[in-house]
């Protein structure tokens, strides 16, 4: 077998942070090779170096036997390597055809030949059964379609080696299955596939070999057939990870799911919504954004002491739902009753008034909405609760400091330094700061988006524990997560959203991964699902 990719001694540091330390990697032609590791293990950096998007501090790259003359994306593409990035590298207002030819434009009489570009789209998509409309603007496509455009482009550029960075993070279970099957077809056709992921079931299902990275170093290089999820998890984290039942049939099992269901059951609050007083009642919530219906007829209740999860493929209205409830998006129709005896329609309140009424919000995008990067941790912890620190004209330094110390201690934020710049925190610690700030508001309702996105495994458990404790203290929680396993681990009830509508509802314990997956893709609600999701 000849070698498709060969990396030797790759080193890369960003300031004090070492992303890759002397990493070696060899991938044979015609195989699917998985790169696994925790968040921040250096997987993406390594792949970006391979694709010429990042430049290594040291080390050599060989693609299909050749060394790139220069460390550029153009050179990697020339040598036959194409990358599908985690954050799509598509120009949103451009059409599919324009995106496809960008960087490799077809010209006619000095001008762009868009007819030829359209034909190229048709040719490649026919060859691989990847149907996408050539003239559609990328901003109008679904996430799954955008990913297909990315793959299409890589194939169009003539890639023999495909690198996919976390390709399944944004897909529904059925789309994941389809994608993994396609990757096998690529390998069968003599192409080589590198897939970066942190989902071990996918690794077991698709990869021939797997390389494990931990803190920038390669800690394992294994044949998939001869390893197990438990061994991989051990290598990823550096210590044994409790895996309920090390069963011999790993491709079908998702250890995280089992673990989480067990966790939820031990929480012992799987009772139905009817048993608790509702803290939040949505009735016919609708929203039109950018000329399209982002939310339509969304009605559900959240009880005090209940976690209601929202499942769905990214871009089906979950973000808009959180934004509307948090007061960050105007123009919604319908009503959102909040509170007990002091009921108010949340939609009539400003963000500040919602906070005062007892609504806390952990935003989906921490960097965008959660933390001011150039503020210290202490300053970030003051956001939205300035009244706690004395009169407006003289905030008490001691009170600020005491509050920060208490939050850092309680939520185990490292470093324990209120004066640390927020931008220097790791993903997990940054999220703990946001969560700490919101939970210490003593809210009655917590809106929580992607609580563990970009958070290392160690911190995930701590964050889950905090959410469970909050639920047990009687707080209602709306939880939006792209990780189905996370929803299954935490929620008392899971609602499925598709195209801005609630299309299904599951109680904890009754949740069926396959059924949720179907509903996420637009299947109509089965009779089994309770009717709370529909109009009253």
């Amino acid at each position, binding site marked *: 077998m000849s070698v498709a990719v060969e990396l030797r001694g790759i080193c890369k540091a*960003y*300031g*004090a942070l070492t992303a890759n330390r002397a990493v070696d990697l060899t991938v044979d032609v015609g195989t699917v090779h998985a790169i696994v590791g925790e968040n921040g293990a250096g997987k993406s950096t390594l792949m970006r170096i391979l694709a010429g998007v990042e430049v290594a501090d040291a080390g050599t790259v060989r693609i299909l036997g050749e060394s790139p003359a220069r460390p550029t994306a153009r050179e990697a593409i020339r040598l036959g390597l194409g990358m599908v990035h985690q954050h799509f590298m598509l120009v949103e207002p451009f059409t599919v055809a324009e995106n496809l030819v960008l960087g490799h434009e077809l010209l006619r009489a000095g001008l762009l030949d868009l007819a030829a570009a359209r034909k190229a789209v048709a040719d490649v998509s026919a060859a691989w059964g990847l149907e996408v409309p050539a003239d559609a603007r990328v901003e109008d496509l679904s996430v799954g379609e955008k990913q297909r455009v990315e793959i299409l482009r890589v194939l169009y550029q003539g890639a023999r080696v495909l690198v996919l960075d976390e390709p399944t993070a944004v897909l529904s279970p059925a789309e994941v299955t389809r994608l993994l099957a396609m990757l096998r077809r690529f390998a069968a056709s003599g192409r080589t596939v590198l897939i970066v992921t942190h989902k071990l079931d996918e690794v077991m299902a698709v990869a021939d070999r797997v390389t494990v990275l931990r803190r920038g170093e390669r800690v394992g290089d294994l044949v998939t057939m001869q390893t197990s999820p438990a061994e991989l998890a051990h290598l990823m984290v550096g210590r044994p990870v409790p895996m309920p039942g090390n069963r011999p049939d790993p491709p079908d099992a998702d250890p995280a799911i089992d673990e989480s269901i067990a966790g939820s059951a031990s929480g012992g609050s799987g009772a139905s919504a009817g048993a608790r007083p509702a803290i939040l009642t949505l009735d016919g919530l609708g929203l039109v954004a950018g000329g399209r219906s982002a939310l339509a007829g969304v009605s559900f209740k959240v009880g005090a002491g209940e976690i209601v999860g929202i499942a769905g493929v990214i871009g089906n209205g979950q973000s808009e739902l959180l934004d509307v409830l*948090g007061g*960050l998006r105007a123009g919604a129709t319908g009503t959102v009753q909040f509170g007990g005896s002091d009921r108010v329609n949340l939609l009539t309140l*400003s*963000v*500040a008034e*919602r*906070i005062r009424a007892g609504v806390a*919000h952990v*935003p989906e995008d921490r960097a*965008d*909405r*959660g*933390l*001011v*990067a*150039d*503020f210290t941790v202490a*300053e970030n912890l*003051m*956001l*939205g609760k*300035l*009244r706690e*620190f004395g009169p*407006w*004209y*003289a*905030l008490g330094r001691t009170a600020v400091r005491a509050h920060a110390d208490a939050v850092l201690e309680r939520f185990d934020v490292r470093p324990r330094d209120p004066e640390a*710049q927020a*931008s220097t925190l790791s993903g997990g610690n940054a999220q703990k700061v946001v969560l700490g700030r919101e939970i210490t508001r003593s809210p009655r309702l917590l809106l929580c988006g992607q609580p563990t996105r970009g958070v290392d495994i160690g911190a995930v458990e701590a964050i889950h524990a905090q959410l469970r404790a909050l639920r047990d203290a009687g707080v209602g929680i709306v939880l939006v997560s792209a990780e189905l396993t996370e929803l299954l681990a935490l929620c008392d009830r899971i609602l499925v959203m598709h195209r801005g509508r609630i299309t299904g509802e599951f109680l904890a314990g009754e949740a069926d991964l396959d059924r949720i997956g179907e509903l996420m893709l637009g299947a109509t609600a089965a009779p089994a699902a309770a009717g709370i999701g529909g109009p009253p």
Partner: protein
Amino acid sequence: MSPKLASLLDRLIAPALALALAMAIGHVLILVAGASPPEVFGALLAGTWGNGYGIAQVLFKATPLVFTGLAVAIPYRAGLFNIGAEGQVVAGALAAGFVGSHLPTAAPALVAVTTCVIAAFMAGALWGALPGWLRGRFGAHEVITSIMLNFIAMALANWVVADFLAQPQTLHTAAIVDGARLTRLGSWLPAFRGSAVNTALFLVPVVVAGTAWLLNRTATGHQLRSVGLGARVAEASGVPVARVQTLAMALGGGMAGMVGVNFVQGYKGYFEDGFSGGVGFMGIAVAMLARAEPWLLIPAALLFATLSQGGLAINALVPKEIVDVLVAVVLVVAAAAGARSARREEGS
């Protein structure tokens, strides 16, 4: 303590680089103009810090620069770039001149002075609030709107003065009442005699200290800074972003308006059309050199005031316009170098 010292040094790199480059370019320009750099710089220093009158004039010219520096710095901390100080200065000075000349002649000094100061501040604040509100409410960029409002302010002031308020044969308003006038320091300190430096100077530390307190120790300041460093985060935590932006521009405009105190109450005794002479724009350079830190505005303003006053001293050797070039060079280099050091912090 040592990382703090390091970060302080890091912050001083940009201004130091700006000054060094401005000096170098100044050297070249002096040579281009056919003069000798040591002679010119010597004359500049002798004409400013070399005698009592020069020092007094530097102080006199630094006073409005601190105000316009604040006019830029306060909105800058809220993420806005106020280049409308020029118009806000006109609004404030016109208000001081109008109110001051309409007070009863018998008005006690304390009342008269305070009334005029408040009028100057309020007028500047109103003119400054407008682009802030347009930004917050409509998203219209304050750089374009505030520069348009500069032109509009100057045309309006010209109209009001020429058609209604002007004394015959002049383009200035009637004299303000004696009670509203500020004392020249030269009447106490013989060395300062002849200079227009006046008690408005004493407002400088008060206003700077107040601004520093406002930014760092109050809820309003925390909100203002959070809008500046992360408007979307601020919005999500309940900060009324548009209102804070309007407030920041109003405060900035008010500071610019206070230039009128120095000019109308402390110097001329009336409002005169077209007096502002670029102090609004020079305030941008002051604020950028001081990296929008209130206390650093004072040394920055002293520096530019020295250049400004020194320009008169060297005019015989080189065109005094060289000073404007140096001011602009400092602004551009401070901005470019500031971005570099900010990025270094980000990378570590």
